[in-house]
């Protein structure tokens, strides 16, 4: 991190933090802080210090605007504020807040810029800063890309500190005691004689003063919460069935809707006969929507039954009807005309390969559904001058725009009541279900409509992870890997996803190359080229996005080359590694797994390393080849996130990421036939079940100099580590996911 960043970490000057290098672009405007949205609707005597803290006589409220889809970010955001504000859990409530520009994501530019996370050059930093400025101007409020903690870490601690110091200033004025002699603890300012002035009692006075603008953040040695095991604030509610997700919303006068859209996604609705549905019990209305038909009833089940009773005539799919056609389109895109970008070209790959290729292989990854357990849903009430949306979503301000487009209101008239989400994995970055709910509600103005997808509708319209393939070759010499040439072809997930939101993103799509180009190895000769496949079936970001595919391609090829060279898989990766923090990750996972120790018969061990979202992550997997098939016995993970906010949640997220990745690598895909997804429910794309779950040992390292998120990085190394372990145990090299097409799992 550059000099300005280091200064900004120590001293916070309100509104001027994230502009390192911002001289290149609209400095004044970028530096202008957005108006605090919490000022609207405050009662007299209620104090707000910034967009994250409100204190009234009755209540302390912390705003946690990043969406919580299970990663625990509501808790983590509150903890960052509470750390500096000196309030304890139980002393405050949280609120997701309203969509607002003030909640723009500072960290989004970090990983969106086409530079390796390990690149700290002036050009890389300047580009990140420029992109940060653009994102601020657009007011991009988004939860995704494992950015919630990088975005929040300084910002929310600063928000807590500003509120604390302002409250001390008020207490000083009231008591006559100089600020320097005041302390704070447990929601109160403490005077030298031990008298406590509760923050809530200071709210009325605090509302009259301007918040302080300069604060000093605490040293890590002073932290009470950060880095310590925490009890997540949502845990009791989630263990008692008392937490309301979007699907549990209950509004006075609400009706229930179910929908069926053309399962040939994007295809037309040619016609339908709803006469059978119309006579069914509880059915109130049949409503045509874009690409399908909805039934409104007095009960979710009745609505689903009725919509399934409609006789539909669907149009053709705007993509190949059969899966083979998708693969052909991908293979055909590996040509010079469709080169999206050559991301790396070091040494002389052509010359190195001319001496003889050790390996030449092709790899494939399938479409995969997100399928979080809470089916997509949204409740919408359309009134003439206002629209209210109840759902859980990751991009609140874009949701406002999409709903406004449907109903004809202005974006400012769209109110979102955001909710805890029953999983997402990228699914709740999409808008289609909310648009459909708005379409139905717009035809029933004044009546709140809850749209719930059936699981089958959810699978049919999942917008799965992109498919892709890679061609790789390489050379080895004297027991070392000397050259690697990797070509990756896939449709642009960014193009597909942003296209649905009406946005055109110019330039190469970094997600085609992610996980493959941004490795910090120092191969003598390395070339990585990305090819853009014209859009096929619609696709969307799936936990770890491009790296979920690219990591499998790159690391599988590297493993094959290491084997050809006759080197040790871990030692050769360590030898090639050029980045100190990443090398430490590899060494750590080796030590944790006792790499190199003898294994019993039919057992094998595989290692993989992928850097994604700035987090170098290494995994070792141990498998046994049994008579019933492969068992995954143990997994070790080492990942460097700079600072571990909560070691308990960290472990849970890493274990979960590994299980998510392994389950899909084993048995999950979406394939198309007759233009429709062939998988309709969980029995077709099962993921991992508890009895298949390995022991998973986790270590979070803190050698990196920036705080990173851990939601996605555990995913990419898991599939290649598993395939590499299966090779070690069986001698069978599998180059295609899901693996169960080639080998059985017990």
């Amino acid at each position, binding site marked *: 991190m550059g000099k300005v960043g280091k200064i900004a970490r120590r001293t916070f000057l309100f509104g001027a933090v994230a502009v390192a290098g911002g001289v290149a672009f609209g400095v004044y405007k970028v530096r202008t802080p957005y108006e605090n949205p919490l000022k609207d609707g405050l009662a007299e005597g209620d104090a707000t210090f910034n967009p994250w803290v409100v204190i009234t006589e009755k209540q302390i409220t912390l705003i946690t605007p990043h969406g919580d*889809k299970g990663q625990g970010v509501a808790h983590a955001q509150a903890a960052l504020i509470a750390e500096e504000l000196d309030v304890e859990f139980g002393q405050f409530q949280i609120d997701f807040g309203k969509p607002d520009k003030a909640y723009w994501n500072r960290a989004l530019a970090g990983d969106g810029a086409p530079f390796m996370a390990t690149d700290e050059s002036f050009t890389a930093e300047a580009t990140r800063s420029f992109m940060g400025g653009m994102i601020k101007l657009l007011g991009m409020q988004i939860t995704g890309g494992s950015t919630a903690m990088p975005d929040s870490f300084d910002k929310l601690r600063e928000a807590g500190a500003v509120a604390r110091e302002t409250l001390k200033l008020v207490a000083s004025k009231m008591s006559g005691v100089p600020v320097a002699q005041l302390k704070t603890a447990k929601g109160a300012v403490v005077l030298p004689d031990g008298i406590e002035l509760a923050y809530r009692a200071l709210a009325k006075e605090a509302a009259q003063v301007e918040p302080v603008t300069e604060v000093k953040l605490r040293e890590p040695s002073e932290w009470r919460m950060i880095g310590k095991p925490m009890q997540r604030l949502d845990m009791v509610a989630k263990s008692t069935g008392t937490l309301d997700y979007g699907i549990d919303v*209950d509004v006075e006068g609400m009706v229930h809707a179910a929908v069926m859209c053309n399962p040939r996604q994007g295809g037309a609705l040619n016609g339908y006969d709803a006469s059978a549905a119309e006579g069914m019990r509880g059915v109130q209305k049949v409503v045509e929507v874009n690409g399908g038909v909805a039934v409104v009833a007095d009960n979710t089940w009745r609505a689903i039954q009725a919509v399934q009773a409609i006789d539909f005539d669907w149009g053709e799919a705007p993509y190949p009807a059969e899966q083979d056609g998708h693969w052909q389109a991908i293979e055909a895109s590996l040509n010079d005309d469709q080169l999206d970008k050559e991301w790396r070209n070091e040494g002389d790959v052509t010359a190195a390969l001319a001496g003889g290729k050790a390996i030449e292989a092709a790899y494939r990854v399938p479409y995969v559904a997100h399928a979080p357990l809470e089916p997509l849903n949204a409740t919408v009430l359309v009134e003439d001058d206002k629209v209210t949306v109840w759902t859980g979503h990751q991009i609140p301000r874009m949701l406002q725009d999409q709903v406004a487009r449907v109903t004809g209101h202005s974006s400012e008239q769209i109110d979102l009541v955001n909710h805890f989400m029953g999983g997402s994995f990228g699914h709740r970055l999409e808008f289609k279900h909310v648009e459909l709910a708005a379409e139905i509600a717009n035809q029933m103005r004044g009546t709140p409509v809850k749209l719930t997808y059936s699981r089958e509708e959810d699978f049919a319209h999942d917008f799965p992870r992109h498919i892709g393939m890679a061609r790789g070759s390489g050379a080895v010499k004297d027991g070392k890997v000397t050259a690697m040439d990797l070509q990756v072809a896939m449709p642009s997930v960014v193009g597909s996803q942003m296209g649905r939101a009406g946005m055109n993103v110019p330039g190469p799509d970094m997600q085609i190359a992610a996980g493959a180009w941004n490795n910090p190895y120092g191969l003598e000769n390395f070339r990585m080229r990305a090819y853009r496949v014209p859009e096929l079936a619609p696709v969307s970001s799936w936990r770890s996005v491009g790296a979920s595919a690219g990591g499998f391609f790159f690391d599988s090829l590297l493993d094959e080359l290491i084997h050809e060279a006759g080197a040790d898989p871990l030692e050769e990766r360590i030898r090639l590694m050029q980045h100190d923090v990443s090398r430490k990750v590899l060494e750590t996972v080796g030590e944790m797994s006792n790499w190199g120790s003898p294994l019993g018969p039919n057992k094998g061990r595989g290692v993989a390393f992928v850097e994604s979202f700035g987090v170098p992550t290494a995994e070792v997997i141990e498998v046994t080849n049994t008579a019933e098939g492969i068992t995954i016995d143990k997994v070790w993970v080492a990942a460097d996130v700079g600072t571990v906010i909560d070691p308990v949640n960290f472990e849970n997220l890493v274990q979960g990421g590994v299980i998510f990745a392994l389950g899909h690598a084993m048995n999950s895909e979406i394939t198309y036939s007759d233009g429709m997804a062939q998988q309709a429910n969980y029995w077709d794309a099962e993921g991992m079940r508890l009895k298949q*779950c390995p022991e998973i040992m986790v270590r979070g390292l803190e050698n990196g100099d920036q705080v990173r998120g851990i939601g996605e990085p555990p995913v990419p190394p898991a599939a290649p580590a598993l395939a590499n372990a299966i090779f070690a145990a069986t001698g069978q090299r599998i180059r295609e996911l899901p693996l169960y097409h080639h080998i059985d799992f017990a």
Partner: protein
Amino acid sequence: MQLIVDGKSHEVDVEDDMPLLWVLRDELGIKGVKYGCGVAACGACTVHIDGVAVRSCQTPVSDVDGAVTTIEGLGQPQALHAVQEAWVEHQVAQCGYCQSGQIMQAASLLSEIKMPSDAEIDEAMSGNLCRCGTYPRIRAAVKTAAAKMQEV
């Protein structure tokens, strides 16, 4: 027809084939019971009938022949059941959406087998899908809950 749910008696007027899940959620407003798949493939809708775990999405309401207990009747935030206590202690949940069903499945297992073996836990809990991957914590929490229930 009459249903006893979480100790309370309810009169419901619905189709015989309406799954218990939707009677609980949409007719009685008991939202702790979750819809995940509708085909008994995920277990999110698990409730007890006379103490035994069933998938309420595949139980026609007319087949209900005993008292129904949901996650909300098992325990409450201020009065947790031993299984719920263990779940909080181990910080099991991520998104939490499957956990109502996981907890009901675990409570049913422990009422049948006081100290289940690892294999028995694996077998009993493998019908409940967790997309977030909290399985290691579920295993640990079931064992802790078993120990807690031995103490009382």
